[in-house]
């Protein structure tokens, strides 16, 4: 009897359509486009700031249009649902904390992340003069 193993082909371009789990993963990964967009936006903002007062004011005004406000809100929600919530949920698995020989309850680590998120957000709002 001869061996002749069959290798099933895998599509390198459509593999993520195979099941729901992979599709959700790709939705996570798509946030990289938003990261790219915000990287360029930051460079653009810095160049405006370095340029002149008029350019900086124009930049600020452009970000306050209805379309941009809607875009920023949607982007924030997308980040929250595909990065913040899932990663905070997984944090205690990737970084289990032990005190002596006992494991710290997972909920402490998750709540710690949300508290840190709130504190940092309030600090940024304070820095921006919102609160």
């Amino acid at each position: 009897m001869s061996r002749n193993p069959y290798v099933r082909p895998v599509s390198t371009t459509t593999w993520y359509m195979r099941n729901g789990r992979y599709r959700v993963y790709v939705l996570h990964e798509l946030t990289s486009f938003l990261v790219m967009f915000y990287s360029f936006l930051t460079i653009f903002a810095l160049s405006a700031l370095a340029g002149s007062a008029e350019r900086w004011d124009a930049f600020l005004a452009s970000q306050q249009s209805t379309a941009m406000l809607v875009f920023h809100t949607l982007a924030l929600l997308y980040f929250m649902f595909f990065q913040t919530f899932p990663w905070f949920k997984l944090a205690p698995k990737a970084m289990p904390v032990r005190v002596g020989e006992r494991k710290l309850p997972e909920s402490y680590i998750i709540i710690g992340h949300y508290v840190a998120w709130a504190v940092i957000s309030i600090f940024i709002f304070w820095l921006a003069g919102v609160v």
Partner: protein
Amino acid sequence: MSTQIRDIELEVMRYDPEKDKAPWFQSYTVPCNEDWVILDAINYVKDNLDTTLAYRWSCHMMVCGSCGMMVNGEPVLTCKTFVRELPDKVRIEPLENFPIERDLVVVLDDVMQKLHKVQPYIIRKDDPPAEDQEYIQSRGKLAIFKQLTMCINCMCCYAACPQYSLNKDFIGPAALALAHRYNRDSRDQGKSDRLDILADHDGVWECSFVGACSEVCPKHVDPAAAIQQMKIDGAMEFWKQKMGIPGGKS
């Protein structure tokens, strides 16, 4: 015990290496008892309908890890997958991401080599204990890695892993979890020996944390978590070496 019988249509992938160019599907109608598992239905086919069907199984109780197959696209142990949870039509394929030897039997040589490669045994740098003594370990130290010892090498995690499907050099979930099991064992001193393989680009960094391995693991080993912990360990080790801090065991 329930005696309710339901006809299930099993669509089974067949492949005869001596005759077939590619796999094909054969349907069998199996009168299933509702408290059967899929493995019982496959055994029914073998015993009553078609003796030529090839598949692996042994214990029928989630211990041996040999009956892993794709059931309706999900990698599962067929001894743990109940007929009552499935529709009237069930598709059974050999585990994804592995070459098919024959019918539902896959070639596991690649992962066997990988399991061996991570040095899954206790490595000691110190002198071994005296003849009448043992390596002592507290319950707390055991609890750190006990979950990782539950792996039965069913390879469902490899079938679920899209990274492994795209890059066969990736060491993959079960072997990495096994390495982590020894790294986290207080009796082991071989962490630095395993580092070269684990920190290589086909090691932990090839994992992009899809998490599918942990979701399908029938023994709740959670290889995805183990791999993320190893990334942190690996990064710490890298900086320790960069900064000239002697790499002690954590």
